[in-house]
């Protein structure tokens, strides 16, 4: 028993090395994010809202919408903020926010300070909705069509270029169909 204890570090290391070897297998790419959710029904959610009004998937069906996962602790989200403001104010895109793993008061402070591009904000305080969506890190933006299917996923801060070249044309196309 006493001797077995001294084997523990070696055993732990070998397990770790096994994980490393798995991660080195061909085809594994930590940057590539799975698109398993694309063209599938978005996971159901019914969240408490930031300003009283809640946010549920059912209420968003009927027309294409954007769902943006953000958090007050997330620096890249602030990079994205001007782009979101433009989407909301100039392009009049229906943009809904989900506050991911965050305190409501912090989120409220953030939106009061930098402007609120969202029509409504749902509170995903424990991150379970993010988990269902497969959020890798905030910010992430999902495009949902009128039936509530996920049509596109943007990882990381939205750039003006992505908006012009991909997002807006896609929304146009979704509106027509």
């Amino acid at each position: 028993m006493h001797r077995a204890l001294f084997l523990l570090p070696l055993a732990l290391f070998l397990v770790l090395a096994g994980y490393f070897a798995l991660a080195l297998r061909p085809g594994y790419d930590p940057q590539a994010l799975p698109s398993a959710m694309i063209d599938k029904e978005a996971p159901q959610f019914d969240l408490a809202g930031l300003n009283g009004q809640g946010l549920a998937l059912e209420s968003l069906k009927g027309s294409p919408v954007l769902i943006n996962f953000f958090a007050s602790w997330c620096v890249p989200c602030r990079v994205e903020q001007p782009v979101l403001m433009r989407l909301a104010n100039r392009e009049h895109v229906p943009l809904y926010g989900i506050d991911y793993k965050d305190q409501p008061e912090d989120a409220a402070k953030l939106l009061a300070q930098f402007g609120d591009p969202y029509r409504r904000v749902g509170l995903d305080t424990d991150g379970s909705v993010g988990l269902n969506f497969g959020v890798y890190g905030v910010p992430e933006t999902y495009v949902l069509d009128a039936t509530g299917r996920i049509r596109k996923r943007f990882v990381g801060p939205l750039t003006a270029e992505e908006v012009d070249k991909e997002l807006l044309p896609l929304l146009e196309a979704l509106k027509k169909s």
Partner: protein
Amino acid sequence: MITELGHFALILALCVSLVQSVVPLLGAARGNLAWMAVGRNAALAQFALVALAMASLMHAYITNDFSVINVIENSHTDKPLLYQISGVWGNHEGSMILWVFMLGVCSAALALFSGNLPPDLRARVLAVQGMIGTGFLLFILLTSNPFLRTWPPAANGQGLNPVLQDPGLAFHPPFLYLGYVGFSVGFAFAVAALIEGRVDAAWARWVRPWTLASWCALTVGITMGSWWSYYTLGWGGWWFWDPVENASFMPWLVGTALIHSSIVVEKRDTLKSWTILLAIITFSLSLVGTFLVRSGVLTSVHAFATDPARGMFILLLLLVAIGGSLTLYAIRAPALKGGGLFAPISREGAIVLNNLILSCGCATVFLGTLYPLFLDAVGGPKLSVGFPFFNRTFAPLMVPVIVAVGIGPMLSWKRGDLLGALQRVWAAYIAAVLAVLVAWYCTHGGPILAVLGFGLAAWTGVAVIVEWAERVKLFRVGIGDSLRRAIHLPRAAYGMSLAHFGLAVSIVGFSASAFDIEAINTVHAGSVVQLAGYELRFVDVQRTPGPNFVANRATVEITRDGRLVGVVHPEQRFFALQQQTTSETAIRTNFLADLYVALGDGDQAGNWTLRAWWKPLVPWIWIGAITMAFGGMVSLSDRRWRVGVAARARRMAPVLQPAAGD
């Protein structure tokens, strides 16, 4: 020609390191003194050869030899000289050369200054160093050779990543690597001790200065990296829990535990197998860090260009080095019986607590860093844990360590008097409570951990001063007497006090970041932004050419109550070659707070995004960290490391025999 010379030198270094890893080891096993002595000369020769390789690669960079692939990929004629030099280690291949160069420096220093080591121990330590060198030289020559040529030569190079063209980052890697690689010495000593089956106070006395020196270098390296990300990334953050940052932080945490536990081995002849394990783990974490950064298994903002073949090679290296040393540990360590017993409340007890918690902290960081990898391997979703995970787990874990830092040095060895020690730090206690109350009052219920942080910092800082005052018997004997005691206090004691005080200073800096005030605004010429009692007037933006970039240079006047405090110039630099923009922030500090101004994007109409922060006490983070490293160096200058105390102690120490059956 010179490049080929460097290439040959590297191949020759590999041959020499093979000799270094085999001959002295055999010599030590057979008691052949001549074979043992090969270790010293081989280590010196290896250093000379690797230095030659490093110099010839640097020569290729400075002379813009664009027939060398590595130079084409990472350099450019327009690049200032400083970055032509630092470009050598600003890429994967070159940084590996820096790695083996630092290993050569350590081995050569070990060879030169180990004259008073018993010849067999010296031979074994140098042989282990030789094995590490062999592994990495093979890695460079087989997968990451910087000396490869191409024909015809390119007209010009592709330049260095603009983000890396910064004086802070030019010197960050050498310090960091010196720290990583320096831990190899402790590792080599640990492996040699396991082979010999003997660990004693004298052993600890040799290991400690090496570990301490590497720890200092790593502290400086991490501090520089953090400072660099603070002023160049433009978002005011100084630590991002990025995998690459964590890769340097984990050896630091365990290395900190190691420098403490080796004190116990030295003074009390106990905690031996634990200290050996820490020495192995510290260097192993440096190696694992190398693997994580260069194999591409994790996503990171500052990872090197990656290649699975390299990852496979490093993984094999890990298996041999870590797997081998831990196997040796499993076989030999049970035979290492400790000497002195101690009560839970004693200085040893405090150090054990420190060790346990630092190790747990390291495990937390490790888990957080590798979580995406673990999850993926079992087919889970792609997830990464961010800031919230580390802030909620790591920060509270460190609280007891900081409490122990205040009280530990005041406990006596073997059996301490906690009540007595607590009574002696009454001033620290009052200061802690006061600081918590003041901070609470000022912020009306600010973040609890930050408020607690101030209290802990006050506790630690004052306890350090009280401990010093106790030692010199301040106010209890005449002032002259106290002065004499203060002068004669060993430097190691001052080193400890400085390092612990530095920790307190850093904690103040960490905690204060909860009280940052920020203002992110769209501005145009003449706009005024209010920030923490200051007024920032945005004057204009000028286009200014630099050596290899064009800058948008803003002028911002800072006034307070109508009085001009200063004019700052945040910049956005556009590097046409790489089509990349970097941000050059303007920081105005008075050492109590920073005004941090960064220029964001502009539009046609002359509107610019201006990001400004008022960051109270943030410079204390780095001041404290540098004080810690300085404390380590002061301790290192203590004369007992230099005189032959260790050799004498070794001669007198009883030799520990491995248990029967080994």
